[in-house]
């Protein structure tokens, strides 16, 4: 499949800012909010970047994974920190599936003699 026939292009990450082309006011509100969220606060910008990397894996956003892998490295995170963050995301994602098995468990017990 040629690149033109795929939905995701690495080059498109740089065009994220262009999403305001047809609705600039809402885009501005989003980017202002986004900027504030990732600024140093009660959590450091580096900690927020690691959280973003974990979430990027959970929502499986290739643009976000690209951006926040780079960002965490730029903020001086170690490879161990990157992977622990990714595992946190994976654990929550896996746990979210498994915790629903309580419903299955309840149903099994409900149906059983």
């Amino acid at each position: 499949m040629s690149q033109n026939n795929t939905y995701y292009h690495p080059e498109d990450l740089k065009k994220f800012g262009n999403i305001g082309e047809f609705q600039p006011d809402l885009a501005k509100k989003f980017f202002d909010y986004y900027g504030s969220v990732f600024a140093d606060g009660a959590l450091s910008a580096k900690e927020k970047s690691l959280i973003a990397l974990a979430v990027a894996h959970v929502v499986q956003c290739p643009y976000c994974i690209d951006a926040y892998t780079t960002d965490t490295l730029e903020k001086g995170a170690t490879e161990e920190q990157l992977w622990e963050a990714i595992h946190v995301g994976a654990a929550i994602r896996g746990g979210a599936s498994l915790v629903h098995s309580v419903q299955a468990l309840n149903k099994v017990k409900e149906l059983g003699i």
Partner: protein
Amino acid sequence: MKSLLARGSELASPKEQLRILSEVSSRKGLPLFEEKLQEIGSFPLRPTGIDILQVNVGKLCNQSCKHCHVDAAPDRKEVMSKETMQECLVALASPNITTLDITGGAPEMNPNFKWFVEEASKLGKKILVRCNLTIVLAGEKYRGLPEFFAKHRVEVISSLPYFQKRRTDAQRGEGVFDRSVQALQKLNEIGYGIPGSGLILNLVYNPGGAFLPGGQSTLESDFKRELKQHFGVEFNSLFALTNMPISRFLEFLLESGNLDSYLEKLVTTFNPSAAAGVMCRNTLSVGWDGSLYDCDFNQMLDMQLEGEVTKISDFNQASLDARAIRLEQHCYGCTAGAGSSCGGSLA
């Protein structure tokens, strides 16, 4: 790793490096650096004076780091002569110049290094040495270096790309991290980096790949915590430097397919406030053969000073102050993000 020169690489040629940067810029539609300065009213870029004389005393080094902008290595033979050092000292005596910044290669491998420091010390100037740390453990010849530095109150500035072994060794060579830590411990033992000693030990961080350095103060906190906790090492300040897309780092960018995106990132993160404080405005750079440059990067790209004064033997402050600083696309490396200079972030 051998130098680009020893390997007969085309990238050993400054012209070829500049051609590649120009070709990528043109293909990607990136603006010229001087156009960016025009936009902010800073072109032509002029010096603010000469506070720092940065002398590159040679390309000979005991290490060969993957990102080295000098292409320094054990196979390089260029070293500054004692006569040229004498000419540097004459210029250094100028009352406006406050600081001598000695760099290389491993500057300590120049046979006249100690003499140069002693003579500069007599002039009462602040002396900085860009020490790669492992040279301190490179044999009997260099064993007394920490004490020598302390005797002359030399400020030691040492590269340590990361506070962990893997990333440091990947960039600077196998075993470099462990030896660097030993050297830091040695420097700490005689007071370097210890509060109140007056002996300054600063570290230099640069990214281990095709990304920019993040916030300098956060990195400094991380380095201080990790080095103290795991190795008992202390230091004064951390300078975060951007890797310049020239020489061996340019080779890495080309081979890894990162050149286009790295150059684009440098351009898109151009910071006008960093541009106002670039080191070429208050520094004069001297090459091993006495040639003059606006900075160490221009030196490695063979971009000699504009104007009549091109050798340290012809040093003339007024003439040098009137020059325009030479600019090419690599200059984006100093103005990206928080900015980058030999003294760390600019903004």
